Structures are given as structure tokens and as C-alpha cells.
């Protein structure tokens, strides 16, 4: 909830939803060309689309990660909106402070403008691992701010190490495969978005999106901003370097993740889930795994385990869509 007086609440203008790609393309760019992210960087695309959707009345926060380091080399930034670096540990905390500052200053007449939309743009590490505490607290306190997790399923910036959202079986520099550990990574990843939903029943809006479905993602950013309170957007942001793909396959990879049912596109509001991708059947996960070098060492028994985990996930989430046989 927000403590702003009613008329000040009304003053925060809702961002209209985008009917089609042409409306989306017509929006101004607030994450401009000129940053040192890898060619084909999924997180960079997710940042660009988010800033484009967010518009002028925004403040973006960058916990340490690729979307800090690769974007601010050197002594320059690509954001045409106010932006601030935070520690990887405290994106949620800094957003809370900025939100509280605007609440106080508007209410006390020290700031005459409109309440801004405040976005944390944190990687999966800065969201579900080292940043989990601050993310959760921001949502629990229901500050009027949006927590965006750009999920490239590893700590990319430091050279591809495992995070709590790295999938089972994935190579990283902390989970190399070898005779002792043929599957490379033995641990199953956290379900960050659903975990946050369960932990914060008061949170008004949570969405999962993908860069491969850009207009859907941009609308989710806008809906999250329109909420007067905390909101979460979890965006799948493929990392060509970390996952072992050629740059031009990044969007294909994101599409396959959704088509195989390993990344679900959804919105959660008013106690209900709605799913934006509902095929007749999901593709077998091997379609997704085979284009990524980080899974190249896996054997059929590992593929099977991964498929079972996905099937269980669909069941757990009440998604009654079958998976095609291999």
C-alpha cells in the first residue's frame, strides 16, 4: 500500500497497455545504444524493453552484475532516466528508501512533481540468492516499486558461476562436469517468482515474462508499474556466453524454454494465475537442451531427470497440458 494522500495517488498516471508491436515500437528509447554488453545480450534486451515500456517517469536501480558493470564502463551510462548503482545485496532496500523518500517528500510538500515508477533491475543472484532478503523485504513492506529479476540463470558478470537459479545439469565455472560429477550441477533451481508469491500474499501483481515475447513483457512491466504497491516481474533473459549459444540464437532459446514448459509465462493477481502460452502440448525438453553447450555433457538419464522435473513443475502449478514424447 502507499501512504500518499488520495489526490497524489491519482496524480501517478497509469501507463496504458500496448495493443500491438507497432505501439510498442513507437515508444521512446530510454536505454540507448552505447553499452559494453555482449553482442546478443539477453539481459541488455530485457533492460531496453523495460526502459522503453517504463518511459520518462522512472528511476532505475542497478545492483552489481552484468547490467551494472557492462553498462557503465566507463564513467558513462546508457540510461536516459535517473539510474543508481546499488550493492548486489540491497537492490530491494535502496528501492524501498527511494520510494519512502518520495512518499515523505511529496506528502510534506518538499517535492512538487509526480511519484516516479521505481524499478530494481537485478540479476538472478541479486534477486534469489544474495539479494533475496532485500527483495523479499521490499515486497513485504509493499513499497510502491517494481522488482525486476533479469534471469540469466548464473552469475554472469563474474565469469559464469552458479546461482540459485542455475538449472540442474548446467555447466558453470563452479559446476564443471567431470567423472565425479557427471551431471555438473546436482542442485535444482529455486522457483523465485512463485516463492515470492507464496511469501508475500499481499503483493498485488507478479508476472513471469521472456525477451522472446517482447510485447507481452513490456505490458507486464507497465502493469507492474501501475500497481500502487510492490510488484515483481521475472524475465527470462538468455545469456549467449554463459549458456554456450551463438548470439543470434538467443531469442530462439527463449522461445524453446517457453515451448518446452521449463519457463512459464504467467501473471498472478487477485489470487489467480493466468498463463499466456498454452499450447496443445509442450515440446520435449531435449529440443531446448540440445542448442546449449552448457548442457552438452549430459546423458539421456540426465535429460530424463530434467524432463521429470519439468513434468512435476507443470503438475505442481496446475498446468494441465501434456508434454510430447521425444
Amino acid at each position, binding site marked *: 500500500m502507499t501512504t500518499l494522500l488520495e489526490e497524489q495517488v491519482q496524480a501517478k498516471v497509469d501507463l496504458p497497455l500496448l495493443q500491438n*508491436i*507497432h505501439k510498442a515500437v513507437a515508444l521512446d*528509447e530510454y536505454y540507448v545504444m*552505447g553499452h559494453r554488453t555482449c553482442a*546478443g545480450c539477453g539481459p541488455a534486451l530485457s533492460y531496453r524493453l523495460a526502459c522503453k515500456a517504463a518511459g520518462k517517469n522512472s528511476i532505475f536501480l542497478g545492483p552489481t552484475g552484468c547490467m551494472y558493470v557492462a553498462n557503465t564502463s*566507463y*564513467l558513462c*551510462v546508457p540510461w536516459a532516466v535517473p*539510474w543508481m548503482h546499488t550493492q548486489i545485496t540491497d537492490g530491494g532496500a535502496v528501492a524501498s528508501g527511494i520510494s519512502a523518500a518520495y512518499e515523505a517528500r511529496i506528502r510534506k510538500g518538499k517535492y512538487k512533481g509526480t511519484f516516479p515508477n521505481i524499478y530494481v533491475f537485478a540479476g538472478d543472484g541479486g534477486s534469489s540468492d544474495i539479494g533475496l532478503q532485500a527483495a523479499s523485504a521490499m515486497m513485504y513492506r509493499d513499497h510502491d516499486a517494481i522488482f525486476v529479476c533479469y534471469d540469466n540463470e548464473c552469475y554472469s558478470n563474474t565469469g559464469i558461476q552458479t546461482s540459485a537459479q542455475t538449472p540442474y545439469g548446467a555447466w558453470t565455472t563452479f559446476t564443471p562436469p567431470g567423472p565425479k560429477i557427471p551431471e555438473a550441477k546436482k542442485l535444482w533451481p529455486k522457483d523465485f517468482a512463485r516463492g515470492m508469491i507464496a511469501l508475500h500474499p499481499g503483493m498485488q501483481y507478479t508476472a513471469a515474462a521472456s525477451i522472446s515475447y517482447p*510485447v507481452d513483457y513490456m505490458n507486464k512491466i507497465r502493469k507492474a508499474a501501475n500497481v500502487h504497491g510492490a510488484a515483481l516481474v521475472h524475465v527470462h533473459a538468455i545469456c549467449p556466453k554463459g549458456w554456450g549459444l551463438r548470439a543470434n540464437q538467443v531469442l530462439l532459446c527463449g522461445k524453446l524454454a517457453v515451448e518446452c514448459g521449463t519457463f512459464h509465462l504467467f501473471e498472478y493477481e487477485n489470487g489467480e494465475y493466468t498463463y499466456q502460452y498454452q499450447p496443445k502440448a509442450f515440446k520435449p525438453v531435449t529440443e531446448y537442451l540440445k542448442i546449449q553447450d552448457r548442457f552438452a555433457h549430459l546423458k539421456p538419464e540426465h535429460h530424463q531427470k530434467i524432463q521429470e522435473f519439468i513434468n512435476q513443475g507443470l503438475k505442481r502449478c496446475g498446468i494441465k497440458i501434456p508434454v510430447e514424447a521425444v
Partner: protein
Amino acid sequence: MKERYKKYTIEIPEEMSIPFAGIVESPKPNGEQPLMLTGGWRIYRPVVDSEKCVMCKSCVLACPDATVLLVDGGNKIGFNLDYCKGCGLCTWACPVNAIDRVPELDFEDGVPFQDALFLLPHVEALYADD
């Protein structure tokens, strides 16, 4: 008091100074960040066939660097070659295969033939007298 402790301060010459608290200016919307020119990374250049193109604009939303542009009054697709990294996402995103990935070596002004472009200004300054 000021004078007594001045001896512990450091004279920072004007040309070395950095902004207060490291706070920098933001670029303009729809603009660019010229301190990080990235066009020099390219191995392949995207080239659009305007005959095939149906202006669906999927390519525009596929570019992490916002270098796929609407040109010619919004009727054609163009590319900002100062920044395009040649990643090929726009090429993949096109549903009608209207974009080709052409090796930079095939162009007279291809990246490997450039002398001193795409350098950060302060690096360029280092080579100014060569």
C-alpha cells in the same frame, strides 16, 4: 582552520577531475552514449531487403542495442552502424528472411578496413599525433 588542513588535501588538476561523487549526465531519450561506441565489434553486418520486408518491426524489438531503426519517414528499416554489434538477433527475428548477415569484409567501409574509428575519445587522443 582551512589553511591548517589544506596541506592534507590533494590538488586535482582540471584535466583529471571527475564529476562530483562520480555522478554522470544521462544521454537523451532516443539518443546514444558516444563514450561506448560498439560498431567496431562487428564481423557480420545486417542488410535488409526492403522488397521482402513487410514492416512487421519484429527486428526493431529484437535488438539489445536499439540500433534497428525506422528510417525514411518510418517506412523502412535501417541500422545504426556506429553501434550495431552484428549479433544477428534481428536477422533471426525476421519472419520473412528479409535481413541478411553479410561479412564486414565484403564492404568497402567494413570494420576491418577502418583506421581510427570506434575509439573512445581519450584513446583516440593518445594516437592523435601518429
